[in-house]
């Protein structure tokens, strides 16, 4: 399987006549995008498109998802298979990537939803999406009494369609850089690098229900048994995020496309280890599903004869139980593990970070304590719905002050404690 990522480096955004890319500037025709997304009758009349650049005094909230514009210029299938494209397997050929650019969807689904991105100020340090040139969709249901599942799906599709459209519009441009990825079949992989340990990545996806879901080729992952997926399929959008609650550690579609664990393991493949497989698994609500999926995922790793696996959790609370089950079952099968999660140690950092633990979990990296409180000064421009802050998951009554400043836990900032590790944040013990 071979995939080339053709990257166009976007350094600037501007609204204009014709959507296209030139000398690092992406021009966006607002009317075209509005026309594209309002084809969906579920979206209301007052939808809008805005842009936000790094360093501006701009706040975007409540952000539901972040998507990187990609489009397959050759090879089977198309980006975001099973969502806005055919269900055909992706992951080979050539894919255009608008690097440094992102599509953000904002809008109200439930009152307590959150997801803050500040393009400047202290809040900007806590989200990778303050560094991207953002095309922001401000969405709204056509009928406020509409079933929330339908409206959630409409918002999701609007974001994906816009991202694909933006990349497609630049298909003719010459790439600034090309990355080539070549992945052997598992049979070939087993014979490569005989001296190196064979390793894998257990990729846990949040699958609890409305606003807590993830999709694989358009299938709701709570309905699958753990399975193998190629890193290259992930780069073509095989994994897509459902809209989110607790913005800090809901893996955005952007972070799936640019999964930093996969990127680092590919980089070190053939040097430190033989990176053989990626196993996706879910985090369901019932204990039976948790036991079933963790045993199944560990069995797959054992069947492949892996020596070790990196495990990333998504979310917290009952997903902590899945993380610990995956860790313990792999270690008991002789498969060494390293865990990547985040912490909920309370605003004073004195509570217990995870709701579960096991002695085998002796190698654990975290993306920080999501309860730490931060004060975000007012921004001159707000895109989306500002008054959400009062009921933000990470906030409490009165977190939105008169002057527009917000005092809130990191939990409310999009991607602040990303459990895919798409952040330099972490924690240490005083």
């Amino acid at each position, binding site marked *: 399987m071979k995939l080339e990522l053709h990257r166009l480096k976007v350094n600037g955004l501007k609204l204009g006549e014709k959507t296209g890319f030139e000398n690092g500037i992406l021009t966006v025709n607002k009317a075209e995008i509005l026309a594209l997304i309002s084809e969906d009758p579920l979206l209301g009349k007052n939808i809008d498109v805005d842009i936000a650049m790094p360093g501006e005094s701009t706040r975007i909230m409540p952000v539901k998802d972040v998507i990187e514009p990609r489009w397959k210029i050759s090879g089977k299938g198309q980006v975001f298979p099973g969502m806005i494209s055919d269900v055909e397997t992706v992951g080979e050929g050539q894919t255009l990537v608008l690097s440094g650019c992102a599509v953000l969807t904002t809008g109200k689904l439930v009152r307590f939803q959150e997801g803050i991105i500040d393009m400047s100020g202290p809040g900007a340090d806590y989200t990778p999406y303050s560094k991207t040139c953002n095309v922001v969709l401000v969405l709204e249901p056509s009928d406020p009494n509409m079933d929330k599942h339908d409206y959630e799906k409409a918002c999701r599709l609007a974001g994906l369609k816009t991202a694909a459209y933006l990349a497609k519009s630049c298909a003719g441009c010459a790439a600034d850089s090309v990355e080539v990825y070549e992945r052997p079949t598992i049979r070939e992989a087993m014979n490569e690098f005989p001296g190196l340990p064979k390793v894998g990545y257990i990729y846990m996806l949040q699958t609890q229900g409305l606003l807590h879901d993830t999709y694989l080729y358009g299938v709701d992952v709570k309905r699958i048994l753990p399975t193998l997926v190629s890193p290259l399929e992930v780069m073509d959008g095989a994994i897509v995020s459902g809209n989110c609650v607790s913005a800090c550690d809901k893996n955005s579609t952007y972070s799936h496309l640019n999964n930093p664990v996969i990127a*680092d393991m590919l980089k070190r493949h053939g040097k430190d280890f033989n990176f053989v497989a990626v196993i996706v698994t879910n985090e369901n609500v019932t204990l039976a599903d948790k036991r079933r999926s963790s045993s199944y995922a560990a069995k797959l790793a054992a069947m492949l004869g892996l020596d*070790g696996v990196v495990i990333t959790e998504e979310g917290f609370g009952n997903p902590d139980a899945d993380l610990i089950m995956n860790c313990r079952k792999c270690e008991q099968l002789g498969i060494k593990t390293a865990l*990547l999660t985040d912490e909920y140690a309370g605003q004073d*950092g004195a509570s217990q970070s995870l709701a579960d633990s096991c002695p085998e979990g002796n*190698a654990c*990296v975290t993306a920080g304590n999501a309860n730490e409180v931060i004060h975000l000064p007012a921004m001159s421009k707000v895109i989306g719905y500002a008054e959400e802050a009062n009921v933000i998951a990470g906030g409490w009554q009165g977190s939105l002050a008169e002057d527009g400043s917000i005092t809130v836990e990191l939990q409310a900032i999009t991607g602040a404690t990303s459990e895919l590790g798409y952040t330099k944040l972490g924690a240490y013990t005083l």
Partner: protein
Amino acid sequence: MAYRIVHYINQFYAGIGGEEKADYQPEIREGVVGPGMALKAAFKGEAEIVATVICGDSYFASNMDEASAKILGMMKEYKPDAFIAGPAFNAGRYGTACGAMCDAVSKAFGIPVISGMYPENPGVEMYRKSAWIIETPDSAAGMRKAVPAMAKLALKLLKGESVGKPSEEGYIERGIRKNMFYEKLAAERCVDMFTAKIKGEPFETEYVMPVFDRVDPQPAVKDIKHAVIALVTSGGICPKGNPDHIEASSASKFGEYDITGVNDLTSEKYCTAHGGYDATYADQDADRVLPVDVMRDLEREGAIGKLHNKFYTTVGNGTAVANAKKFGAEIANRLVADGVTAVILTST
């Protein structure tokens, strides 16, 4: 203008006396007393000890609430910028008193609170989350090493400088998580750690899962007919009305109660403080958790030497993760001091 420090010491370090003066009532004196001199020297004028509180270890242990309230009252007029207690090294009750006072002062005045203890001191486990505790040797011989470290940390906290890791600053790990930005992405840090673990190379986990170490079993009791057996429970059994206000879950204190002449725990006199289970059965007959009635029979029949006249109780959370480990060392010390041979510990 020098920072204002209030220093807390016990009767021994104030030169008043040893165990025989352990019931010395709280007193505050202007200026420096005893080990305060070493602190004053270490501050080099940047801070000064405006007052020293002196209190006997026994008095504090048995009147914890009134003693700390009285001391807080005495301290108020001195308007301290920071509070230093000890160093207590490995003295159990002195360390517990230092920890309790640090906790009370930080809650009442919200100022930095520093103490110094040997890691095994029970005060460490009970109060490391509410106070900065410099790690000290296990005896006063370590004064020369402990005091400068306490002074340095105090000044750093007073100046609002950020405090580094325990190993860098010499304090005992408090178990409080603090965010920081690392050089590398969390993903890269995880793959680094993974590679080290796979290759059998050393690595340092970023988050330590709470796990339990083992202790070797004690030798068996040789002569049960002359043994003194003590009862201890984490099931929260205590006199009716819970006089010591033991909290209903993961208590921060334990109770010591005398059962001389008590042959049966009746529902009029005994109940449970524990909030972790349906209390109706224990309230009806506390013997169902703490078998005093049967132990008295065995004592009368000579099957055991003696039932110890005091029992110890706390509220332990039954989960594998959280336990009432904090008080075990202190209870064990008191039982050994009272000549107890062995212990029956009951849990719900």
